């Protein structure tokens, strides 16, 4: 009994660490969005620098998972949970990487000023951020309906991506001088779109973790 209690306590700590990781990632996306909107060089640099912290957190959580699997031989539900968390960590870490990549691209742009206000990309990023937030909420509350709904949002992020790319291509055709900035913005949009994809993965993992069905 006492061993199981210890196991439950470790599971709870792990749960808290996962949420911690999620909030770190969300914060990183928030800062990225702010940096994008304000064309803020300092903020972008900060996000790039803080990516290491997230990588470290990922390793900590993964080690915890492996340690629990190795020493406690969890069965059924717990094992499924731990395996899902392991996979979720990868997605979270990738999301943070994309945020850092966006900021790196932004650093190349800063000083130039945007050729047109970054409306669509910022809105798209907010949408992707909300997907990550919803996935985390679904994870915390074991809310399967919320987890399932996340993939529906992904298609609107993809739609946004198509519009953004079309707009930027149009811009390049009209004004070849802006090709450099436009391509960088397309890359940024692609990264945002990938964040949406990883958030979809997170949603699927959470729903699989709760229901056990793929």
């Amino acid at each position, binding site marked *: 009994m006492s061993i199981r209690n210890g196991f439950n306590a470790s599971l709870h700590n792990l749960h*808290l660490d996962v949420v911690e990781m999620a909030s770190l990632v969300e914060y990183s996306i928030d800062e990225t969005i702010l940096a994008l909107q304000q064309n803020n060089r300092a903020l972008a640099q900060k996000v790039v620098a803080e990516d290491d912290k997230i990588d470290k957190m990922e390793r900590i959580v993964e080690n915890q998972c492996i340690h629990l699997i190795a020493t406690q031989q969890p069965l059924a539900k717990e094992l499924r949970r731990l395996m899902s968390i392991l996979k979720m960590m990868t997605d979270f870490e990738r999301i943070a990487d994309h945020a850092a990549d966006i900021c790196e691209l932004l650093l190349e742009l800063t000083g130039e000023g945007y050729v047109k206000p970054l409306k669509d990309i910022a809105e798209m990023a907010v949408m992707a951020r909300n997907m990550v937030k919803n996935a985390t909420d679904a994870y*915390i*509350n074991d809310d399967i309906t919320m987890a399932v709904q996340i993939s529906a949002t992904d298609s609107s992020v993809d739609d946004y991506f198509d519009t953004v790319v079309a707009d930027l291509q149009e811009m390049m055709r009209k004004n070849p001088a802006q090709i450099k900035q436009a391509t960088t913005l397309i890359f940024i949009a692609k990264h945002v779109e990938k964040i949406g994809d990883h958030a979809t993965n997170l949603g699927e993992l959470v729903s699989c973790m709760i229901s056990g069905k793929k």
Partner: protein
Amino acid sequence: MQRKIMTGYLVMILFCAFIIGIFSYHVAQKHYISEVENRLLSIGSIIKQKVISLEDIYDHNNLNQIALDYGDITDIRITFIDAKGNVLGDSMADYMTLKNHSDRPEIIQAFREGQGESTRYSDSIKRYLKYIAIKIRHNQVPIVVRLSIPIDDIHVIRNELISFIAAGVLVAILAAGVLGVQFANKITRPINQLTTFSKDIAKGNFKGTVEIEANNEIGALAQSFMDMKTQLDKTITELWEKNVEMKAILDSMIGGLIAVDNDNRIIRISNTAIEMFGIKKKKIIGENILLVIRSHRFNQFLRENRDSFPLGNQQVLDIQYENKFYKIYLSRIEGKSPANKKIGTLIIIQDVTNIRKLEQMRSEFVSNVSHELKTPLTSIKGFIDTLKGGAIHDKEVAERFLDIIDIEAERLSNLIGDILELSEIETMSQDEHMDDYNLESIITEVFDIIHHSAVKKNIHIHYEIDEALSRVYVNKDKLKQMLINLIDNGIKYNNAGGAVKILCRRRHDIVEFHVRDDGIGIAPEHISRLFERFYRVDKGRSRNQGGTGLGLSIVKHIVNLYDGQIQVKSEVGKGTEFIIRLPIAI
């Protein structure tokens, strides 16, 4: 409990029945055997008398005849044996064929002691037999009469006895069982009642009572349970009331409040805090705060200050949560016992969104004013420099430049005039220069002022006044300023050939001004910010029109001065309508 009592009870009954059965069996057997012995002895004594009365015992037929006679009557085997062991007569077998009996223990005993007894298995008749031998002295010649009876009857009796005892035990067990159940119930029922009662209390139901009227230990227990319930009910109600009071106080706080323990689990949270962080989770108390409020900076701040912050010192953090700005204050919650100094952290959240907005507006205003003042000045300075640099000698250019300088100086003066006006209205709490005026004459004056620019842009302006409306109590200059600003906007942001219409309606003591144009209109996203200082929907256009960006701001402040209301209806491409209600009609 009931089962235990019952089992113990049954085991005891079975044990007793068993002991009683064994005892009674032994007693019965003993009694039966002694009865058989007595019978044999008494028959023996009768035969003894008979034999003594015989004349010649050595006439074997005599003894044999006696044996046969008595054996026939009594069903007992009777044998006569002399001292040498020869059989002299037998009731069941031919005595001549019988073996010498001198080795039989009862015979030996009888010759020695006068009477012998033995129980043996007889080979000749294959049964257990009881033997009684009695010595008879007949004319100094000793012989022995031996009586024997099969005692396997005793087995029949034993079986009967056992079945009687078994039946008795069975009846006893049944009776005892029924009684036992009742007895067990009598003990367990009040205990069960008490159990249900205390379970109810544990669930928080203080309504039930326990009815046990027993004048024993259980009765006393029930009574003390009732006392305990009353006391608990009282204490809990008091606590509950205190709690409700506390919650009400906390919830009426303007700022949000959260108390967490040392493991960051929420102990208490006020409704304001729940609203501030938009918490939808139902189970909040006891949950780790990280799971409830997912703000990385907030949680990091909490963690950093977990043990470190000095006594009595507050820590402050500014965070942005969704679209709100919060100031977070942390202070430690001190426990009463010295061993447990810090029992948690108190978090107070203050919504500083409005303060932030004001700060932002102020800094925007300062930068706007400087910018607005700088633009005409730069151009004036530029033209003066050019003039100084030689352009002054070219008369035509110089005149054009001076015109521009004039326009810019005019704009600068307008701007400063507007700023002064605005600050004057802003600091004014009540207008002192109020008087009685005719509304129509005021509007005519406004039209005289505005006429020039309307004609220039080919805009048609006209007004309508309710017949019921003639006199107003107002500061004439302020009202004129307000109407000029509104109509001027209507003209500026209009297409050539358009129209501006002023309607004045009376609603009780309220005058309703409608200033309607059919110009370019305003997009909905701009309307909420329209009255901010220096806010321009289209910066280039406004400046070209000579606007200062303060016109509507002044209008709003004048309306506020008279406790009026202002409303904007607009549609892009169709026109704009400003509706102003002022309580100034007499």
